């Protein structure tokens, strides 16, 4: 296209105007570092000298008994809870402790909550529309128009999460499993670098679990995925690297086989089930 054509085209977006897709610096490998993080609630130490590193494109499962600090750790990464001490870095450039929740979200950290919270009064399509990576300030949102490429992106995600047939139905009528997938779809709309997934298969049927496992493994590689899960069968089916949390710090780390043979781990956690 000649320069004149470019100038005449009102819709043309010049290269220097497009935002850099991901300003996250992962040249050194890890996408997320947590170092010596401590949090206490009214004297109870929820997180105790936690050190954790997640590599770019990795699929990591985090397991641990109740009260091990899994959800608190997610809260720290997403900016909901501030640690008392320690440092949390996203790539080697962004100090997450200096940022607020929306900034962290727009940086490319998406979180799926334990309880599915989709917008029940909106359709499946509209849920994904709101989650789309876009200018989220008030006035641009007011004047936003649905461009064909946005529609294509939403349809693409609908395909991935298997909700294409339910596109125009209200999210409120979805089954529990479908809501979970819609939530994951909403995370994908934001083109995140890091996905935090909290108990994705709680309350799911065997079949739904299988599909969720497929979905999550297909996501790894393109983005880093951190899964917190109780269901050991599910973790075994997807995990490459497993981290065991106990009383707010890392107890063991390795493949599922290494971890499940660790005597410490068997004592605090697996022992109860085995």
């Amino acid at each position, binding site marked *: 296209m000649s320069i004149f054509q470019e100038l005449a085209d009102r819709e043309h977006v010049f290269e220097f105007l497009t935002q850099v897709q991901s300003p996250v610096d992962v040249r050194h490998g890890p996408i997320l570092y947590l170092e010596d993080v401590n949090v206490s609630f009214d004297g109870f130490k929820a997180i105790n000298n936690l050190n954790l590193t997640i590599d770019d494109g990795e699929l990591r499962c985090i397991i641990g008994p109740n009260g091990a600090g899994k959800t608190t750790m997610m809260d720290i990464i*997403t900016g909901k809870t501030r640690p008392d001490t320690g440092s949390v870095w996203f790539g080697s450039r962004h100090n997450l402790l200096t940022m607020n*929740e*929306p900034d962290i*979200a*727009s940086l490319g950290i*998406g*979180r799926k*909550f334990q309880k599915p*919270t989709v*917008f*029940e*009064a*909106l359709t499946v399509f*509209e849920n994904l*529309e*709101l*989650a789309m990576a876009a200018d*989220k*300030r*008030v006035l641009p*949102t*007011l*004047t*936003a*128009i*649905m461009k064909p490429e946005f529609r294509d992106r939403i349809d693409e995600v609908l395909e991935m999460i298997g909700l294409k047939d339910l596109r*125009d*139905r209200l999210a409120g009528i979805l089954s529990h499993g479908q809501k979970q997938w819609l939530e994951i779809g*909403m995370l994908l709309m*934001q083109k995140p670098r890091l996905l935090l997934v909290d108990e994705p298969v709680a309350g799911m049927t065997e079949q739904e679990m299988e599909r969720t496992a497929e979905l999550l493994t297909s996501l790894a590689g393109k983005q880093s995925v951190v899964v917190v899960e109780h269901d050991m069968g599910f973790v075994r089916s997807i995990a490459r690297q497993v981290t065991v949390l106990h009383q707010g710090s890392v107890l063991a780390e390795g493949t599922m086989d290494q971890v499940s043979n660790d005597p410490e781990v068997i004592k605090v956690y697996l022992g109860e089930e085995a």
Partner: protein
Amino acid sequence: MSSSQNWLLRPFQERSTQIFLGVLFAALVVVTFLHLFMPQDSALHVSAYTVTLLGKYLCYALLAVAVDLVWGYLGILSLGHGAFFALGGYAMGMYLMRQIGDRGTYGDPVLPDFMVFLNWQELPWYWLGFDMAWFAFIMVLLAPGILALVFGFLAFRSRVTGVYLSIITQALTFALMLAFFRNEMGFGGNNGLTDFRDILGFNLRTDATRLGLFIATGIALAIGYVVCRAIVASKLGRVSIACRDAEARTRFLGYRVERVQLFVFVVSAMLAGVAGALYVPQVGIINPSEFSPLFSIEIVVWVALGGRATLYGAVIGAILVNYAKTVFTGVMPDAWLFLLGGLFVLVTVFLPKGIAGLLQKRRKAKTDDDTPTGQEATA
């Protein structure tokens, strides 16, 4: 799904907006016709008194639309919208006071009567400029807008929502009522502002001006309705619903919930101000009783009766309740509040979606008959 490129034009593609505007303009034309061309003694003649009464209902309808925008779509139950309405009314009242000129009882060319009575020597600074219509009309938008901006900024930044916000808005309007009751405030104390003569050079006491105000109110309602509908039909409208239903989730998607709330709240306050400004010349007085907490609660009842989150439901509710009020306060004034309370309870229990919900149900039943395969979802 609408495909218009311009967010302000989008509502015109919607069926409900077309019907609403059609009915509203038909009503304006019919009332104008019956007022002007029917002989005085005809049963169909609409008197100037009725025209003004209808104009008053339309002001209330615009106010109700403003409340429905924040309550129905954003989930913010404001029990203080009467304050924005009254501020718009006072801005208009100040303009009308300055228009009286030397025709007041005391004949002072600049000072309104109540200031002469209080022995004030000169106009307070905040009365300056209100002799110019354009300035006053801008203040009709700015005064409620700025109050909403400051109040909303503080409240939403601290993430005050739900019941707490409702209580604070009640306190806001109550505090303003007490302040405006004071003579030292310079707004006429408990008598308020009254004894108006003209607006934009037209004598307020003639039938033609009254009809003009009625039509202007109808047009303002149409514009306000379209603005609200445009916001609701935009992506921002869907974000508002998201804030209403799952605020924390919306924040995690990267939206600044407090800014969305602030924007919609300020727009709503400005619309309420316009409603107040059109109300004052029609009823001929503005006094601090418009700030009373009870009035603000009544507005919410109109919206609840008409049906939340529909906009047209708010209009229906405001007009029906106020018509009923006019009738019943004439027949048995003491029973009115009991009747209103009873209506509110009955509607909440049996018609949780209000009158609009009833209309929707009927329409849905009809479309279900037409399309038994349930294709209405894709329409």
